């Protein structure tokens, strides 16, 4: 049995930015098998569909997972009411494909907005071999910067309006860093326009890149086929499914025409 389902205790909660919540959950059997880039599917009382949330950190020793999510609607708003002392109903770990972990390789890791949390576990793996570029709308939205610094990676921060870090986009910093540095892999999560831009840069430079996607989901395990994402593999266009075939994809499969 690969998937776990149950009620797990919440042991820590923070509110690092407006509308953003950071939870640690005690779930040793999930933490033991979860992989970087996978997600959990959370049930909220009164809602038919679970909410898929990426895993931010896996602590196998403590047996905990950390998730950081943003209020997007009624479901995530109800999730934000969960607190230590309470329990969370999760199905996990989900996702047939996480990030490629290449021992000793150099990586550039990029997160945009609420696409930053799934990049922390990856940054921990690459440590000093990584450059982390985080982008946010403004200073009020900035999260996880101390955590990224703690991994030993070289970190860059930018905001759309320049209220924190550099003014500009993650792709501006990426292009600049690529002038002096050629990583083995670029990994990213964030809004589609950002991922498209990163995929184009990676393709131009001939660097392998992986993107973590999100799509409205049903079952979360590959049984219902709703979370379709158009991909091209071996020259053939198909609808892959973010839950089972991803959520991490080679950017060439997702942005094949660009």
């Amino acid at each position, binding site marked *: *049995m*690969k*998937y776990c*389902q149950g009620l797990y205790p919440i042991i820590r909660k923070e509110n690092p930015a407006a509308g953003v919540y950071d939870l640690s959950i005690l779930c040793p059997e999930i933490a033991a098998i979860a992989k970087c880039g996978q997600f959990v599917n959370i*049930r909220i009382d009164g*809602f*038919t*569909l*679970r909410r898929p949330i990426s895993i931010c950190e896996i602590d196998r020793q403590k047996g905990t997972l950390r998730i950081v999510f943003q209020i997007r609607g009624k*479901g995530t708003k109800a999730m934000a009411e969960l607190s230590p002392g309470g329990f969370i109903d999760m*199905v996990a770990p989900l996702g047939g494909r996480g990030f490629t972990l290449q021992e000793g390789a150099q990586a550039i890791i990029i997160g945009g907005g609420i696409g930053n949390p799934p990049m922390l576990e990856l940054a921990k793996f690459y440590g000093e071999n990584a450059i982390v570029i985080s982008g946010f709308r403004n200073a009020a939205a900035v999260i996880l910067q101390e955590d990224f610094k703690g991994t030993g990676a070289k970190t860059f921060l930018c905001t759309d309006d320049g209220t924190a870090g550099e003014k500009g986009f993650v792709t501006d910093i990426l292009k600049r860093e690529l002038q002096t540095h050629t990583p083995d892999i670029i990994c990213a999560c964030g809004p589609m326009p950002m991922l498209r831009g990163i995929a184009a840069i990676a393709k131009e430079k001939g660097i392998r890149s992986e993107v973590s996607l999100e*799509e*409205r*989901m*049903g*079952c*979360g*395990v*590959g*049984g*219902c*086929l*709703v*979370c*379709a*994402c*158009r991909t091209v593999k071996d020259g053939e*266009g*198909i*609808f892959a499914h973010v839950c*089972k075939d991803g959520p991490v994809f080679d950017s060439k499969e997702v942005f094949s025409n660009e």
Partner: protein
Amino acid sequence: MNENKNRLETDFCGIKFKNPIIPASGTFGYGREYEEFYPLSTLGGISVKGTTGKRRNGNLPPRIAETPSGMLNSVGLQNPGIDSFIEKELPYLKTKNTVIIANIAGSTAEEYEEIAGKLDNTDVDMLEVNISCPNVKAGGAAFGVSCEGAGTITKIVRRATKKPVMMKLSPNVTDIASIAKACEAEGADAVSLINTLLGMRIDINTRRPILHNNVGGLSGPAVFPVAVRMVWQTANAVNIPVCGMGGVSSWEDAVEMMMAGASLIQVGAALFTDPMTPLKIIDGLEDYCRRQNTDLKNIVGTVMPW
């Protein structure tokens, strides 16, 4: 009564189901994914993903939208095609010791005939013929909304196979009982209902429908009372058994739908809320039968209308 007796055993079209609980077509793939939660042998049967003559890519995303107490979907019958099902999925399912219900769909009468014919000499136990998919333009629903269309497809499939044939009916009709009767008259062994109710949601910020297909099928607890009503009307109108579905998410729901006239129960959207739902329903039904000191089949159709 012997305490170890299986009180949930159900005979349906001459097939023995160890219990009447079946994951509904389109919510359970071909079973592989859920084997990561529990052995498929615990289920009464599996109704596999709707399968067509050729591979279908399905509709553009988004394909799902949440609704009050339910959800809309518009997958559009994405599936690998009947040959791939027979070659790659069926041998796997065959090893799982559960009843295999092949759900099939076509755009033309010929396509239904071809698929039914191909399945006739395979290990599937019965056919569930989808004449009610609301998400495909030239899809089965065109047949399922009239007595003539439903009768025509039933007749063609009936001729193409010796397997039991169960016609899956659309709720998007004026009188579902008359459609069921048309299927019965052409030789259907059973009917299953309801497929999803056609619905729509709009994002008020973008003025775009949430589903890329604009409209989709509503399922989940929201449709349960409609499903109970239609199962009741249909069971009263035909002499063939009824497989009930639509919003069942607890053992109490299953009992209610059985009292309305369903001999088998399919569970769909509830799997998304809780993948363990079928097992919880089976446990609940066992307890219920023990308390009532009866076999489950004795409650089918026992509602006492006013």
